[in-house]
């Protein structure tokens, strides 16, 4: 591919913030996004921005007692678009951004900080009940149903006596019908665990040697296809999730992407073969996954095993000197993207030529 056919990544709008920002998310069906973080005075903040003719307009600023680490709209309906957040105190809240004084749902879900949250069943994405999964430093991964107060509907924690690992990332997937659903969790020691919520069992686990910073299925609402896991030390792994071998598990391909931690991975909602990784040095890499000729083959015993494809770098760009900690594609506009970095900046990015890739 010649240079001019490559997609370009352009910082469309940049804005400095007066707080440390941890996460950002597009509000579905709008030109708005939220940023979440903590003020220097130790309180939490949610800001709602809207793009208005190439400018960012702050619509709302909500201050809360505890710093907010992560958020998702994944379990909310399009009509409500409630934001679920996890904070430093281990609380899971669901906010109505129109009336943010009192949370719609509130639970002290974990003993320690909630590092990560993911939602499913809302926004018309994924079959089945709306559910939120949280992963925390206390080592547990809990699944919540906003219709049930106080108690999680599922709780995955290490057995007594086993070391508690800091859970850094969680992701829903496989929600292609009302029953099926999986939760994938990544831990600081490099463990990746795949929990089957239908059978309530651990379906698969592996270790990628370095702490797992981010996990994402290419789609949540299809039968598991691909899973990308990014890690400390700059590597990421793409697992082919279609074929599970009884002993070898899922086939994977790994790529050394950034020179430092790969903080985030996000698949393009309009094309699941493309994904963007955000690196520790403030760089963004756009990747394309190419499937092998045959996605599965027989091993010597005649059991199906997966075959991993390959990844190719489409574009990379360095935006900041500090790590880019969060990244979100607009679900509504192809090529529109927002990211935040630890230099307290929020950037709206434009990625061109995604249609032709």
């Amino acid at each position, binding site marked *: 591919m*010649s*240079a*001019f056919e490559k997609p*370009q990544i*352009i910082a469309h709008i940049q804005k400095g913030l007066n707080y440390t920002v941890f996460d950002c998310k597009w*509000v579905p*069906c*709008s*030109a*708005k996004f939220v940023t979440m973080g903590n003020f220097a005075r130790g309180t939490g903040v949610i800001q709602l921005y809207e*793009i*208005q*003719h*190439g400018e960012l307009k702050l619509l709302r600023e909500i201050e809360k007692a505890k710093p907010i680490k992560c958020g998702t709209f994944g379990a909310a*309906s*399009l*009509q*409500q*678009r409630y934001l679920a957040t996890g904070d430093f105190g281990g609380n899971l809240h669901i906010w*109505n951004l*129109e009336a943010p004084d009192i949370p719609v749902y509130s639970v002290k879900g974990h003993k320690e900080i909630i590092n990560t949250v993911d939602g499913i*069943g809302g926004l018309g994405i994924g079959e*089945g*009940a*709306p*559910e939120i999964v949280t992963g925390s430093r206390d080592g547990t991964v809990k*699944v919540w*149903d906003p*219709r*049930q107060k106080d*108690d999680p*509907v*599922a*709780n*995955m*924690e*290490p*057995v*007594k006596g*086993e070391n508690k690992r800091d859970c850094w990332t969680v992701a829903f997937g496989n929600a292609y019908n*009302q*029953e099926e659903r999986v939760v994938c969790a990544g831990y600081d020691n490099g463990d990746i*665990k795949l*929990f089957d*919520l239908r*059978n*309530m*069992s*651990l379906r698969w*686990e592996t270790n990628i040697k370095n702490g797992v910073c981010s996990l994402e299925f290419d789609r949540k609402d299809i039968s598991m296809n691909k899973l990308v896991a990014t890690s400390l030390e700059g590597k990421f792994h793409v697992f082919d999730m279609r074929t599970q071998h009884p002993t070898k598990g899922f086939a994977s391909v790994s790529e050394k992407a950034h020179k430092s931690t790969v903080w985030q991975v996000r698949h393009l909602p309009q094309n699941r073969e493309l994904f963007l990784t955000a690196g520790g040095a403030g760089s963004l890499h756009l990747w394309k996954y190419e499937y092998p000729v045959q996605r599965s083959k027989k091993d010597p015993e005649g059991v199906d095993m997966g075959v991993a494809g390959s990844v190719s770098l489409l574009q990379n760009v360095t935006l900041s000197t500090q790590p880019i900690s969060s990244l979100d594609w607009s679900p*509504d*506009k192809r*090529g*529109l993207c927002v990211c935040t970095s630890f230099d307290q900046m929020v950037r709206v990015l*434009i990625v*061109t*030529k995604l249609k032709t890739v």
Partner: protein
Amino acid sequence: MTSTSKAVELQLQVKQNAEELQDFMRDLENWEKDIKQKDMELRRQSGVPEEVNLPPIRNGNFRKKKKGKVKESSKKTKEENTKNRIKSYDYEAWSKLDVVSCSELDNAISVLSQNSEERGKSDCNLAIALNRNYAKAYARRGAARFALQKLEDAKKDYEKVLELEPNNFEATNELRKINQALTSKENAYPKGAAPVIASAEGEKKQVGEQQSRQQAILEKDLGNGFFKEGKYERAIECYTRGIAADGANALLPANRAMAYLKIEKYEEAERDCTQAISLDGSYSKAFARRGTARTFLGKINEARQDFETVLLLEPGNKQAVTELSKIKKELIEKGHWDDVFLDSTQRHNVVKPIDNPLPLGSTKPLKKVIIEETGNLIQTVDVPDSTTAAAPETAAGLASKKNSSQGDLLPSSDTPRAKVLKTEEISDTSALQPQVSLKQGGYPSPSEISRKVEQTPAQLVTSVLPPTPANSFQLESDFRQLKSSPDMLYQYLKQIEPSVYPKLFQKNLDPDVFNQIMRILHDFYMEKEKPSLIFEILQRLSELKRFDMAVMFMSEPEKKIARVLFKHIDKSGLKDDSVEELKKRYGG
């Protein structure tokens, strides 16, 4: 590639990219407009989500069942319960797919879902969905379908069971029955499997045991079926057969008790519950049912204790809470409201032991743990300590016995430690007089007793005479410990001076303890002690705050004991007004 063509390419690229970006920007403007409109529309719907048919909350069924499971499982503490309950929390158990918990769930299904077979069936479906290889679920579904007269389906289920577990006895039996039913087209329910059992004779003893256990479960399921249909007598028959087959299953008597409750045979229900409790001391449902039975039988106090036990076993049990409040209301109506409140507060401080049946429980005797503030001890100690010459010996003896457990023997009474202890044993001289005088009555002197006591621990470790109690909790617990040996109880009671009763009991005279004291007076004091001492004890007891309440709870035999005691006092010539008055207070 030449440098000129490179430059051209670069130019082209730059131009194209600029165009692309401009296109995108224009596009973005349009999109912005569109999406804002869409956004506004969504907002105008004011957050009312579309009506969608959402699946139920995950594990919701499981959650409901969980309650029943807790009751059934013989675990002592709530924490332990939660630990054992959802093993599915930990990875290892998850990967194994916890069949144990499934079986518990299944148990819960069979006992709890007392509404209809339909529900039982759907529960089984759920279990099957959870684990396709779970033969038991198939068996249960088969039973449910059988009861629903879906013979063909039931047959399929049992065949599936046999496929999974080729040696499953129950399935073979049931299949035979279904086949019989199919051929004869009789709609009658299976009339127990006794003949089938007989046909299965000649098999090994172990197999037989297993069979009888299975038989019991079968009967239980059958009984549950009848119960759900409201045919309580038939259910009772089934349960009775089940008990005969497997006497160690606590569920059977508990279920039979429920059936008895339904047909208002409360005495039988109470007896069955007691049996269930003796089989499984942590089976809170049995306690709850016994409580219900006892309420109907008018044994309010015992009922209250049962419900309190339920609450201990299962904090927050709604039935127990409502029943307790009902009982309390009843007591308040009768004018004993202070008793109600005092008693309930007192109970908070006591962690009651759980009586497990011998094979299930640990071999060590369970101890009641008393939680109290240490300040209380000092309070009881400040008794005048004028002691007679004979007393220190006793005190020292007892004290040394007490201290021997701590490793430092204090043979002489001149250390301050011993003095403090001594004051616990002997309060004042005047009160001691009757005791001293009774030495001539042929019974060994206190010092002899203490020496005896010192000897006994070596031989009988379990029946060590406890020291005099510092408060009523201790007294109650000691009483319970010594329950099995009335003689020890007598000696124990004897070391407590009647004059310290008010201090000892304060406001907590438990009717049970009271009745026990009466019995001891009757069984031992009448024979071995002077009537004047009995009289004094009775009088001291009557001065206690909750005495009237305790008298109210006296049963007929206990009242008889009181009458006999007073007759005894009368005979000894102590008859005067004070005795008459006391007699009246004791309901005589």
